[in-house]
């Protein structure tokens, strides 16, 4: 009742979706769970000409582990992903982060792929995708392409997906054996958008860190990867000293936004403390 007027299509096949996207382009919005889109419509912050509802498409709600990749389809709901054994097996980081993703009723309906396409800067899953080296499978009438997470998230609420493309699947490489993960977040209430969230993965060989990924949410216009902090860890002995140094580097690497919820200094300090905690957790889970 509250949104501005729009046309509504509810196709039965992906081909029809792609045709509609080709036809309407920028005027179209794909709706899956609608948990971000519908509030924006109701606030009349968006005025799309046509909504393309993909909820009737068959075979897009898969969550599977094939060829060393976790594959999550466009209609897989947060709740299903959260509870999936394939996710905890393939991506401990995603499994650790998922309880922070929104609230139960929203998880029942919202989708991982929709969440990634929305790319809210305080959202957990874009950061997880970035840390995990995920790939986005984008399909249009012209064909299919895959885009790496680091190229996909292009800025505040924006991605590399073209107006005629739909994200049909996200693929997350299976975490290497022995990798540990940690995830920490501070938000107004559990499930709210993060003031700051930090995810980390770590591998240790012969008493030295061999590979570290550190990502932050809530600190800028999209997910942030703290390369300098990762570099600081490489070759270092895992432990409190190294983690504190990496945490300081992570805090230095951001230029956080300032809003009603948190100011920049506080966000920077949160990145420091949460990075240290995430690394300590990750190290404790390495084997």
């Amino acid at each position, binding site marked *: *009742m*509250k949104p501005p*007027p729009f046309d509504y299509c509810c196709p039965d096949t992906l081909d029809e979706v792609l045709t509609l996207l080709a036809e309407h382009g920028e005027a179209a919005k794909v709706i899956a769970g609608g948990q971000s889109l519908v509030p924006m419509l109701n606030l009349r912050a968006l005025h799309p000409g046509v909504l393309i509802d993909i909820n009737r498409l068959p075979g897009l709600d898969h969550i599977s582990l094939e060829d060393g990749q976790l594959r999550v389809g466009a209609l897989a709901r947060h709740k299903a992903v959260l509870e999936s054994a394939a996710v905890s097996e393939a991506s401990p980081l995603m499994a650790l982060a998922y309880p922070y993703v929104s*609230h139960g009723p929203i998880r029942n309906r919202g989708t991982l792929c929709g969440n990634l396409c929305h790319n809210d800067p305080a959202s957990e899953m874009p950061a997880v995708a970035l840390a995990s080296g995920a790939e986005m499978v984008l399909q249009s009438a012209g064909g299919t392409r895959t885009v790496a997470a680091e190229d996909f998230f292009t800025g505040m609420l924006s991605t590399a997906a073209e107006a005629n493309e739909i994200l049909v699947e996200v693929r997350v490489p299976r975490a290497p054996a022995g990798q540990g993960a940690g995830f920490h977040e*501070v938000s107004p*209430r*559990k499930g709210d958008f993060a003031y700051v969230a930090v995810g980390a993965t770590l591998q240790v060989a012969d008493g030295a860190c061999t590979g570290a990924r550190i990502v932050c949410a809530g600190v800028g216009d999209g997910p942030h990867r703290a390369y300098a902090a990762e570099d600081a860890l490489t070759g270092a002995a895992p432990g409190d000293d190294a983690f504190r140094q990496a945490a300081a580097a992570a805090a230095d690497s951001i230029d956080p936004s300032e809003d009603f919820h948190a100011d920049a200094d*506080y966000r920077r*300090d*949160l990145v420091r403390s949460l990075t240290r905690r995430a690394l300590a957790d990750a190290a404790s889970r390495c084997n």
Partner: protein
Amino acid sequence: MYVGQAIRRREDERFLRGRGRFVEDITLDQPIAHAAFVRSPHAHAAVTHVDTAQAAAMPGVLAVLTGADWTAAGHGEAEGVWPVKDMSGADSRTAYRPLICVDGVVRCVGEIVAMVVAEDRHQALDAAEAIEVAYEEKPANTITAGALDPDIPLVHPAFGTNEVMVTEHGLKEETEAALANAHHVTEVVVPTNRVTAASMEPRAYLGHYDRVNDRYTVWTTNQAPHIVRRYFTKSLHIPEHKLRVIAPDVGGGFGMKLYHYPEEGLVLWGAIVCDRPVRWVGTRSECLLGDTHARDHHTVGRMGFDENGKILGVKFETLAAFGAYESQWQASITNAYHFTMLSLAYDIPAIHTQVRAVYTNATPVDAYRGAGRPEAVYQVERMIENGAQEMGIDPLELRARNLIPPEKFPYQTALGITYDSGDPPVLMGKIKALADYDALRAEQARLRAEGQWMGIGISAFFDMAGAGPVKMMNDLGAKVGCYDVASVRVHPDGRITVFAGSHSHGQGHETTWSQIAADRLGCDIDHIDLVEGDTDRVPMGIGTWGSRSLSTAGMAVYTAADRVVAKAKRMAAHMMECAPEDLDLADGEFTVKGTDRKLSFAAVANASYHSGDRPSDLEIGLEETSFFDPADCTYPSAIHLCVVLVDPETCAVTLRNYWAVDDVGTVINPMVLHGQVHGGLVQGIGQALMEECAYDAESGQYLSGTFMDYAIPHAEDVPSFGLDAHFTRALGNPLGAKGAGESGTIGAPACICNGVIDALWHLGVRQITQPMTPKKIWRAIEDAKRTQH
């Protein structure tokens, strides 16, 4: 006996099954049109042009109305039920909230500039979007603390000041002397954050005009339907007897739904203009902005102690926000409920308070669950906490030394209010045991040695509940009589309908009023129905607010039921050929004392209506009404105690434990009481830790317009509450009952804030403005570090 039993709520069946009937559920035999509103996006602006032409031509649009139309129709604005009076006794600088902008100036974000009425809601919203309004922005101020500073923009330039009024109460000279002679003086600056009720059901109104019979009807989310008629006498100039007000099921009020909101008057206006029923149901964003806000005091306080921590005197200077306009009950806070309660549960010989009410370019402030008392408790308890910490006296011990001892009751405070009954030391003893206080302090010391920050918070207070008596509340500024009304109608088959002037919007009156009536009438509770919320069915009522209904409407039920019994006994005595005094009434039967002679209540009821064989001076029928004016307010009291943990790095707060020991006098239904305490505590926790109606200081834009930005606690944000009770009887009503609706919101903000300060005191933190969000705690610690180095 039903009173005292935890009977399951009789209304819950329909609520739990989704069968409640709220304003949005009302259907009529005419199709209902919908209203949508154009609201000011600016905090302060001149409205230079409103172009409605395009909107008026859009599909489904029935009318587009502006302030010019309102003025042309001769309509006005509702008068205050509790208007401002300053200390001189004069009516002070009153600017009532207009229903629609009529003078070409909008003074807060959200002020209504135009209304669209259309066949459906969608069309109304589309047309509202098509109305073009030209604004010239003016400088605005939304901040209470600086509202009287020079160079601050004036909300109402005609007054020449942002000051609404000044009030002073208490013992000025004695207080100055006490502070001058004190061994130790604590000073605090304590702003109370602006919050709003955020009721589960948004505000909603449906207006209807019956042109044939010249009768108006308004369905409204209101807590006091009879008072709504009073508002309309001045806004749309409708005589009270012409207007039927129905408040059906209402999903939460908390004081916020007491007022004549613009939309309530405008939908009825739209109905008259369009000759169609018109409805509006608020969106969350409209309600977070347009529902009255609450609290928003800025207080500087000084408290003097002797060397043993005994409080000698306390002085307050407060700026109290009114927002852009005066809402109808606004001065109930400043002139009745705030200053009166500043002694809390303490024996304080000298208190003086000055309140200056101020206009700001913000949503009007009015009463919300607690109304003045949460502010009072926060202001006093923050000083007590800091005083105890500064003097090195255990905070609970210092409070215990200052509690009003039982032998001093009835206790007259330095502000002239007399608490009829209570026993704070017993409450303190109970909460100390319940929380295992000494063990908590030991744990706190151990954790602090480990670098963990644990705090213990305490608050102890009295509440002024149960408004009346009429005279006392008139003296405190009320323009409505604070009594309440009930009729008990016995039908010829012996079943009973109770009509009450209260209104249940979560309180559970269908259960508790029936418990009272069933006990008085000696009948099965299932033989009683309750009618509330309809001015055509209930004779009169002042409504449900301020924890008043039990000791006013509830007592009217009690009194009317007793009158019914007295009359029925006369009829029964005539039928049984005995004296009325010889009869007992229980289990639906009259029994002649000492015999086995019985006569059913139903038979007496039937005879009361249908038998010519009755005492010659006994009127036909069995129905009685009581207009109950209580002998006194009631003064419930409580002590709260909590444990908070503050993360030393992230500054996130965990509320680990919360205990409350309440004295609410006689309890009708312990389950309902616990529900009241739990709900109030959660709202108080919200005020302490996360809720804030925030404005951008520069632009005056409202920042809390959705539930993503206005956080209210979830179940997992609150601990399981530990409750205990000790009951002293209220002296002002026959059941000895006190109010119980506001204890949680009154005590929790101060208690939790004291807990956080206690956790951080060793770091040098002395005060944090509520809500104590992690960023503010972090900043306070950083500031303290800098100050100390």
